[in-house]
């Protein structure tokens, strides 16, 4: 076959395909080249494992069927699915259709796309022929129905359960325009063809006949197919520079994820895949409280990722985020948004974070202490928590000492969240030394911010527990110390404890045992951030209070007697201003439920993480 044997109109399409076939491997290769040799070995090993099957499965459930989006909103899920899965099927089924007709698997690449141009009747006489004609038309309707929803999403997003849609930039608009023309053009071209030929699938034949009644189909035949081809070609060429890059990148991301690649400190290309896998679906803007409550609409994950992609990161966008985790949790593509933000913050700060030779308070070494209580910066400003924790420990006969009673040092997490990684590392080293010097067997913290960093970044030689978990264990070991009351309490999941560390059930279980736990509308992994997060370096106090007010309303809706939280920063944040329902910490709730006159005298075995720590007599 010579070049001249191919009809001219297929060239726009082919140009687009060739462009992608060259550009995509180049760019993916460029990203993957950053992978270190060690990482590459891991990838290779996993390639031959069941992870590959798991990856294929995820590609089907997420890239094609978009099940995660369905969970967010069914209409939105259908829209994404119809476009992705519908188009996929259109191509695959179309390929089978051509194979069936030409008995030649290696026919022209463009044949399935423009099948009706070359073979307007299909194979109408046979059952298979009718079957394919029907299927192809059904798929077209499937996709067009999704397209209608896509139009609605852009102009009336509330109908699809979205409070707002992502703002577009120029490359997106170009690609979007081409994309929106593709299927209507296909329908039009196939209808014109069917109208002229007098045969075709049930849908295109019907619309073809309708068009024939008032349009000069002979003159529209070539333009229609040209339009379709141009729409396709234009889309393919615009694709790598727009949000639709996600179509291919997402698949790559899934495989790399299953093969063990992760965003890390050293560049390995995974971050590039993540950033380009964002389809700008806008779900992150819908779950973000800055948007919902504070009227801040420029710094959500989608815009942050877009800035990174087009290499124009801006501090205003990077800094204005609570790092609450709601967006990364909702992201249907599983992008590690929080980690990318932290990475970018580190870049921005770039040397402003020199460690300092801090003077550390003296640590009293006491080998008979079992539990070392690290109150942390925040708990000092909510002494009620410190007192209650000490009271409960005393009542339970546990030998404890407070590491930072007189003066302390920070756990390092706030510095880390601001991107001051070197400084955070130095603080971690200093605090680690202090803890190891104390000789205790368990580190107890009352602050989830501390807990998360102790759990993830420190390498202590003793286990660390958050007091909500420790006290839950205590409640199980020594239930006779505590009473049950009729007090109604709603529980607020702190971001760093809930989404950040996966601890949801223990505090709830405790509260159910000492009182009556009242559910709230947004809870557990859907809980709302109190707004006090230190991670946001750009928000004004006035807008912060808007977020706090909304979070408070969520907890106060059922008029509980108390709102209980397990984070001193949350408690302090909710206490600003005059609130009707008192906000207390879980340790304070526990202290209230202590039966007067009891105390534990025997040896107390309290589970702490993986080991059981036997404590000496009180």
């Amino acid at each position: 076959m010579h070049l001249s044997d191919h009809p001219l109109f297929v060239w726009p399409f082919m140009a687009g395909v060739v462009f992608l076939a060259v550009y995509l491997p180049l760019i993916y290769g460029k990203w993957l080249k950053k992978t270190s040799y060690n990482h590459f070995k891991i990838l290779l090993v996993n390639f031959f494992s069941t992870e590959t099957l798991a990856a294929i499965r995820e590609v089907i459930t997420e890239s094609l069927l978009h099940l995660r989006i369905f969970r967010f909103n069914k209409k939105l899920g259908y829209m994404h699915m119809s476009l992705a899965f519908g188009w996929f099927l259109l191509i695959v089924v179309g390929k089978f259709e051509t194979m069936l007709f030409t008995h030649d698997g290696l026919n022209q690449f463009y044949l399935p796309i423009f099948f009706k141009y070359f073979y307007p009747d299909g194979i109408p006489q046979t059952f298979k022929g009718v079957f394919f004609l029907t299927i192809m038309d059904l798929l077209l309707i499937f996709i067009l129905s999704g397209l209608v929803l896509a139009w609605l999403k852009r102009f009336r997003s509330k109908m699809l359960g979205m409070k707002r849609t992502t703002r577009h930039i120029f490359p997106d608009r170009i690609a979007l325009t081409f994309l929106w023309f593709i299927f209507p053009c296909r329908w039009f071209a196939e209808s014109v063809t069917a109208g002229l030929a007098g045969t075709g699938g049930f849908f295109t034949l019907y619309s073809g006949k309708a068009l024939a009644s008032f349009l000069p189909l002979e003159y529209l035949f070539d333009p229609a197919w040209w339009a379709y081809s141009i729409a396709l070609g234009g889309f393919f060429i615009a694709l790598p520079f727009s949000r639709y890059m996600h179509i291919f990148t997402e698949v790559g991301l899934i495989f790399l994820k299953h093969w063990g690649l992760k965003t890390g400190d050293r560049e390995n290309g995974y971050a590039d895949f993540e950033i380009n896998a964002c389809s700008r679906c806008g779900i992150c803007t819908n779950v973000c409280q800055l948007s919902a409550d504070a009227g801040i609409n420029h710094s959500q994950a989608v815009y942050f990722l877009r800035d990174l992609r087009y290499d124009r990161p801006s501090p205003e966008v990077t800094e204005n985020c609570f790092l609450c985790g709601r967006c990364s949790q909702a992201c249907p593509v599983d992008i590690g948004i929080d980690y990318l933000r932290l990475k970018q913050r580190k870049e921005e700060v770039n040397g402003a974070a020199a460690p300092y030779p801090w003077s550390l308070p003296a640590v009293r070494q006491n080998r008979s202490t079992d539990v070392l209580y690290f109150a942390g910066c925040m708990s000092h400003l909510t002494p009620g928590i410190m007192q209650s924790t000490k009271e409960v420990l005393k009542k339970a006969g546990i030998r404890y000492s407070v590491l930072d009673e007189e003066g302390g040092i920070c756990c390092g997490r706030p510095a880390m969240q601001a991107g001051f990684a070197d400084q955070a590392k130095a603080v971690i080293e200093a605090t680690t030394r202090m803890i190891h010097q104390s000789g205790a067997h368990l580190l107890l913290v009352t602050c989830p911010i501390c807990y998360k960093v102790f759990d993830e970044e420190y390498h202590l030689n003793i286990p660390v527990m958050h007091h909500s978990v420790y006290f839950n264990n205590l409640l199980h070991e020594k239930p006779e110390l505590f009473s049950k009351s009729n007090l109604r309490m709603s529980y607020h999941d702190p971001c760093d404890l809930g989404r950040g560390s996966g601890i949801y059930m223990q505090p709830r279980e405790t509260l159910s045992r000492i009182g009556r736990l009242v559910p709230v509308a947004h809870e557990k992994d859907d809980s709302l951030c109190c707004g006090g997060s230190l991670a946001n370096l750009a928000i004004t106090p006035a807008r912060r209070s808007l977020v706090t007010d909304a979070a408070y309303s969520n907890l106060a809706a059922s008029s509980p007697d108390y709102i209980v939280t397990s984070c001193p920063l949350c408690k302090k944040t909710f206490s600003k201003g005059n609130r009707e329902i008192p906000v207390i910490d879980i340790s304070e709730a526990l202290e209230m439920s202590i039966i007067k006159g009891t105390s534990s005298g025997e040896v107390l075995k309290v589970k702490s993480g993986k080991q059981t720590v036997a404590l000496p007599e009180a």
Partner: protein
Amino acid sequence: MSAEKDRKVAVVGAGVAGIAAAITLKQSGVEADVFEKEETVGGHLKNWHALFPGRENASVVLRGVEESILSHNLKVQTGTMVTSVTRNEDNYRLTTETGLSTDYKAVVLSTGFSLFNAARKEEYGYGIYPYVITSPELEKLLEDPGKGLLIGGEPPKKVAFVHCVGSRDAKVGNHYCSKVCCITGVKQAISVKELYPDCEVMNFYMDLRMFGLGYEELYQEAQEKFGINFIRGRVSEAAPTFDGAIQVKAEDTLLGRPLKVKVDWLILLVGMEPDKMTAQLADSLGVETGSSGFFEGENKFLKPGCSKVEGVFIAGACTGPSSIPDAVNQGRAAAVSVLEYLSGKE
């Protein structure tokens, strides 16, 4: 005019402002019904021992108020809370908690103030550590030092006052200055020093608002005669010590160094907030309150005591932090405005 005795005025709150208003009205022949939610009259006056700046005896003043109620034969209903006041055509319908409603031609609102709840400043440890008390609680102690919070019977050796608790503080939502706590702090510092001459007394302040005549003089007396230690630095937190004392953390801003000191007593100079009834009545009557929650007047320069609603008048601490002379003057002024209003309606 024979109709004068029929014109009735209601006064909500029998504190010094309300009583002053009622007396002034009575002296001009207008009978006022005074409603007081507590069982006693005089408002917060009964909680004070010595008044500033001269440390006049508060109970003497209170007795004077009570006597003038009797001598003017004022109609005061104590233990009666007013639940709402609403416009009813030309009159105001006042409803008490018992459900009784009466119509009045004019209403004077003198609902006074509430003290800031010190527990809201959790970092000061009120209600958490022992020996952290508020200024009114100290006042009671000064009256009867025998029943004090003395550590094992010993008198305190070091005492610290914290100024601006619950005032000038965006974190508790009270941006305003409560005006009278600074002079109270100076006055109480002197009283403590008089009671325990060997005790070291420190006052931690941001500013010292000695606005009245005699106040700055009292401050100087506190410094020179009584050796009170005034330290410019706001206390950020208090922590307990092993021996039951309180560790105070502040910065000596004039020296520029962080400071800590162990004290036996920590006294919080709590500010004034509008009484809860103020918000309730503002709602039902449509009287405006400012951003701080206190009643706003029509024109404080030319129409003292008049609210923005015709026939409704305001006096005393419910319009803003006030001293007792302030409240008394406002009560009288409001009464005169009531009289003007009533004669204007004839």
